[in-house]
């Protein structure tokens, strides 16, 4: 018969007190597990969501983090739009056009303009996105077919392409302008199926979504990606721009656009397609997703620098911004929550100590019998310590189950609200640290009652029990 079994029998003898003590420990551990798992999943989701492209270029007027959260995670309201011309200039390696619009002639040098065109050569792929609309709570994102054909996302350790569970991608061709693709969660949440139609609603403009707006038709449904894109609806950007309400809003910006055109004309920059430019005047984008040309790493830092310093837009590296975000705000919140949860565990540990210590006077006689049978002081001390460890580990096991159970209950709501898919069985490696942590805590809190057992006067205790 092992000493563990002796300790276990002692726990069984006081089943109610032991159960309550273990349960309080379980609640503390459940909190720790919940914080760890949710933070782990959220971190992974954020990191995963911030991959697939290297740079986001969007309007100024908000923080870089706002731009990332808005573009990558579809959270919050979009920042100021940038002209479609910006996208074309960037794509065609003519970033100097945008520099001319922002930097006064007196402060502009040939070197700067040449540098702007040079750094835009680092752009291998640029994809425009328009944000600020939704449908039944799902963000509606207007983009080009390239989004699904050329971008990848990080899944299970590697970059993978978007897969369609049903249907196909919308096409960059006539007749396909009002096609749309559903993310996996969005499909479930809206109930839309292939062939169904919907009207996106602008978050800030009530005229959107009225009957005169064209309807978009679902042509594809994506496989789950574990990113925020799961809860989004993607529309062909061509159709989006053709919405009458949008055209109306764009027309309102015509004056600003004319200034843009006139300004550019004044500079008389070479190679500017006036027809195309005019067409682009009524088009705006919320952000441009940029993939670098892998053969030009020397330009990776120069491009965002030129964009930020010399153009009307701002550039942000999403992975870096998310890293800062997670290590800053989220990291501190997590640390605070973790400290609170650990404090709960420590308080539960003290509960074990109090419960065991209070029971010691009742158990003094049993301890004396064991000693009379030949158990050493160190043996009875070990039995008490083992009991403390069993209570802590039992409570810990209960806590892990409770924690993951809580996540299983909250998971669907979290996924609906944030797009972060939390798998309740997603065990974090750091959870393994709970085992040595609880053993150490149990040993510490078990020390006092164990010493009580150690010091038990056998003769006196036997006499008292006679």
């Amino acid at each position, binding site marked *: 018969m092992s000493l563990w079994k002796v300790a276990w029998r002692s726990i069984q003898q006081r089943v109610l007190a032991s159960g309550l003590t273990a349960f309080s420990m379980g609640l503390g551990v459940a909190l720790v597990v919940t914080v760890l798992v949710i933070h782990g999943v959220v971190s992974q989701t954020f990191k995963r969501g911030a991959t697939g492209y290297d740079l986001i270029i969007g309007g100024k007027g908000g923080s870089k983090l706002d731009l990332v959260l808005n573009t990558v995670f579809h959270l919050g309201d979009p920042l100021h739009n940038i002209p479609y011309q910006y996208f074309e200039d960037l794509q065609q390696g003519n970033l100097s056009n945008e520099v001319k619009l922002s930097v006064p002639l007196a402060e502009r040098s040939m070197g700067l303009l040449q540098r702007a065109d040079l750094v835009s050569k680092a752009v291998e792929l640029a994809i425009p996105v328009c944000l600020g609309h939704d449908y039944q709570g799902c963000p509606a994102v207007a983009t080009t077919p390239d989004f699904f054909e050329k971008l990848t996302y990080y899944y299970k350790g590697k970059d993978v392409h978007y897969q369609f569970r049903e249907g196909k991608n919308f096409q960059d061709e006539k007749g396909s302008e009002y096609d749309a693709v559903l993310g996996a969660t969005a499909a479930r949440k809206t109930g839309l199926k292939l062939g169904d139609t919907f009207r996106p609603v602008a978050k800030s403009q009530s005229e959107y979504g009225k009957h005169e707006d064209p309807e978009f038709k679902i042509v594809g449904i994506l496989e789950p990606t574990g990113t925020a894109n799961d809860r989004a609806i993607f529309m062909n950007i061509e159709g989006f721009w053709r919405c009458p309400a949008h055209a109306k809003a764009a027309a309102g910006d015509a004056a600003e656009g004319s200034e843009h055109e006139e300004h550019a004309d004044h500079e008389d920059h070479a190679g500017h397609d006036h027809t195309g430019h005019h067409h682009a005047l009524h088009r705006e984008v919320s952000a441009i997703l940029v993939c670098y040309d892998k053969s030009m790493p020397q330009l990776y830092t120069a491009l965002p620098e030129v964009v930020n310093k010399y153009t009307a837009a701002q550039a942000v590296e999403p992975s870096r911004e998310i890293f800062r975000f997670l290590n800053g705000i989220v990291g501190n919140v997590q640390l605070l929550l973790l400290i609170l949860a650990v404090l709960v565990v420590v308080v539960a540990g003290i509960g074990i100590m109090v419960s065991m210590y209070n029971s010691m006077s009742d158990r003094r006689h049993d301890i004396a019998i064991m000693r*009379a049978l*030949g158990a050493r002081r160190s043996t009875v001390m070990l039995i008490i310590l083992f009991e403390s460890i069993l209570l802590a580990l039992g409570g810990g096991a209960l806590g892990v189950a409770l924690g993951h159970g809580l996540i299983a209950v909250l998971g669907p709501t979290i996924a609906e609200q944030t797009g972060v898919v939390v798998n309740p069985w997603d065990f974090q490696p750091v959870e393994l640290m709970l085992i040595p942590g609880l053993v150490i805590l149990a040993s510490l809190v078990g020390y006092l009652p164990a010493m009580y057992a150690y010091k038990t006067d056998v003769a006196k205790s036997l006499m008292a029990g006679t």
Partner: protein
Amino acid sequence: MANHDILILKNLKKSYRQPDGSELRILDIPAYRVSQGEQVVLIGESGCGKTTLLHVIAGISRPTEGKVRIDDFDLTLMTEPEVDRFRAERIGYVFQTFNLLTGFTALENVLLAMRFARGRPDKTRAKKLLDRVGLSHRLTHRPTMLSVGEQQRVAVARALANRPKLLLADEPTANVDAGNQQAILDLIRQTSQEENVALMLVTHSHEVADQFPRVDRLTEFNLAISG
């Protein structure tokens, strides 16, 4: 071949310091011997120090002075852990109040005594002992589910678990109903004889004492053993 002495007490003294600083002498035994396999009854009035003497012999209490030799080992020269080990291996103890561990079954109570002595309990011997005391059908019963007489039988089996050289029994029939007293007494004597264990039984009952070939008296007056 004559049996050698299992227990030798020499100039054994035990006293307690009282709150007023004075010493209260409990035991003063110049010399005392018990041979291997011998059955001795120790009789004396309540409070004369019988239980204290057993505690000192078992190493549960340390003597104030003198020697306690058991099976040629001097307990007074041993460290406490050595005494604990020695007690577990060579001394059996039957208490007046049985002192079974209530959280454990009859079988586990016996196994636990083995665990503390050798680390590896011998389940076969434990079952055999319980069978010997008539409890083979009560192995998995906890003390609260056993009658008083049955509890004391478990205590006897437990005391013999580690094949001790000396069995100490402290008024083992005092809390047993009249019908079971003789049966328990017979059981202790018979099993001790079968296992060739020296028995030292404490009682204040002359009826019990009269059944033993050797009766020693612990008198309060002179704290001396008299045959």
